[in-house]
């Protein structure tokens, strides 16, 4: 009985190790820097979570398919650069422009670009049965090349793009409402909308059910009449669109865009998904898990930032977090098997 209890406690501790580490970190940071639990800090963490959520929601779909998408960060970068070049008052990429394009047109352009790259990813994965890692590694490099070429257009010469229009900045980073003196940006509302949309897509549509079916058991899904190839392509296309939206938000949030925009975003999004219980085994994951994963990851980064921990070390921390999250995920898989 005692042995059974010990095993149960060990299982509980190891399966929830990530949450325990985060809780300990929060306690430590709050003791060292009490402002960490202040209103401004909490709003900052929520805002950062909101800015990363669309991307994580997109990548989560690919992980549900037992895949991944490492081209995500570069698609974010490309959309941010396109947005910053078209919604600007300084026409460096297109010197012949006399006025910025209407915001809906730019949004449509980047959704098409993101969706097309996602479709190419999905097509290669579905049609040639290649591992998504290889396919998205290729598209990541191709997209990076495209970004560098795009940034060299006109008179820009590879420089960072800034000077975005006020209407665009206001649309994304304008104040949604204020809590005391702290302003909550508009993109928190957009992130909430995407959460609702993706929840409906995942849980209430045939496409969502098919996605889980393909991720759980491809052969069984095919036998039961699911169009596996179409489902995979749709998941990657939807993900591409979500990355494009993240880029659209990011350009205004940061105030500039350059060739390094979106760098390593995919690693944050993938680790957030794994922390949130979207398993690499496939067919497992919840929207609420993705939200919790992104939020917890931002809490870690904000906490380390509050402690003025060197950014170089944060990369090591990120890598270890991914490894721990995957090891825990693997443990859950093995214990169930």
């Amino acid at each position: 009985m005692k042995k059974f209890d010990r095993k149960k406690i060990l299982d509980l501790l190891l399966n929830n190790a990530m949450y325990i580490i985060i809780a300990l970190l929060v306690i430590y940071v709050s003791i060292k820097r009490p402002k960490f639990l202040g209103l401004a800090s909490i709003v900052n963490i929520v805002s950062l979570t909101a800015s990363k959520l669309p991307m994580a929601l997109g990548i989560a779909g690919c992980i549900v398919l037992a895949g991944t998408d490492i081209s995500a960060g570069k698609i974010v970068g490309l959309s941010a650069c396109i947005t910053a070049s078209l919604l600007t008052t300084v026409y460096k990429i297109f010197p012949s422009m006399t006025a910025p394009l209407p915001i809906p047109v730019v949004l449509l352009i980047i959704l098409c670009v993101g969706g097309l790259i996602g479709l190419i990813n999905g097509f290669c994965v579905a049609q040639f049965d290649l591992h998504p890692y290889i396919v998205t590694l290729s598209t990541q490099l191709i997209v990076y090349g495209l970004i560098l070429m795009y940034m060299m257009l006109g008179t820009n010469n590879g420089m960072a793009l800034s000077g975005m229009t006020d209407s665009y900045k206001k649309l994304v980073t304008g104040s949604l409402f204020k809590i005391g003196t702290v302003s909550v940006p508009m993109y928190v509302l957009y992130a909430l909308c995407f959460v609702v949309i993706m929840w409906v897509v995942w849980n209430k549509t045939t496409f969502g059910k098919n996605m889980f079916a393909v991720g759980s058991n491809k052969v069984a899904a095919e036998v039961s009449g699911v169009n596996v190839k179409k489902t995979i392509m749709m998941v990657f296309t939807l993900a591409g669109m979500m990355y494009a939206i993240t880029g659209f938000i990011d350009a205004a949030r940061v105030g500039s865009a350059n060739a390094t925009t979106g760098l390593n975003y995919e690693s944050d999004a993938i680790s957030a998904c794994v922390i949130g219980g979207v398993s690499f085994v496939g067919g497992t994951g919840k929207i609420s898990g993705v939200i919790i994963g992104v939020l917890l990851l931002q809490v870690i980064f904000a906490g380390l930032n509050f402690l003025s921990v060197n950014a170089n070390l944060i990369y090591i921390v990120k890598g270890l977090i991914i490894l721990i999250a995957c090891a825990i995920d693997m443990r859950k898989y093995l214990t169930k098997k």
Partner: protein
Amino acid sequence: MPDTEKEKLKEQTKGEMDVSPLSLHNIYKNIHISVRTLDFIIVGLIAALFVVLLIGFNNRGFVIEFDSQGGTPIPSQKLMYGDLIEIEEPSREGYHFDGLSRHASCEDRFDMQTPIDGSMKLYACWIVE
């Protein structure tokens, strides 16, 4: 396909943990490791994370680097989160110092009242006298 089998498949697609080796690219399907070994690996990784965090907590501070762009050099600074940057104004013959910028092209200026929240490089901006 019989209805009972369809029902079974429906159950599988509800998003709960499925351990079928037939998953599209199940990365764990060929892993042969005992749970006990994996437990040791997890504990080891957590220990490594704590060591890294400990190193981080003992070497705190953001490095602010400066590029004087032809002016007298500005020494780099190590500041903590929330600190403000204070520098001695650099000088350059024939030019007047016009603040710092995050971009070498000086298209915007860095507000010296901005609390520091990370390492960064700042460029000196100059106006011809």
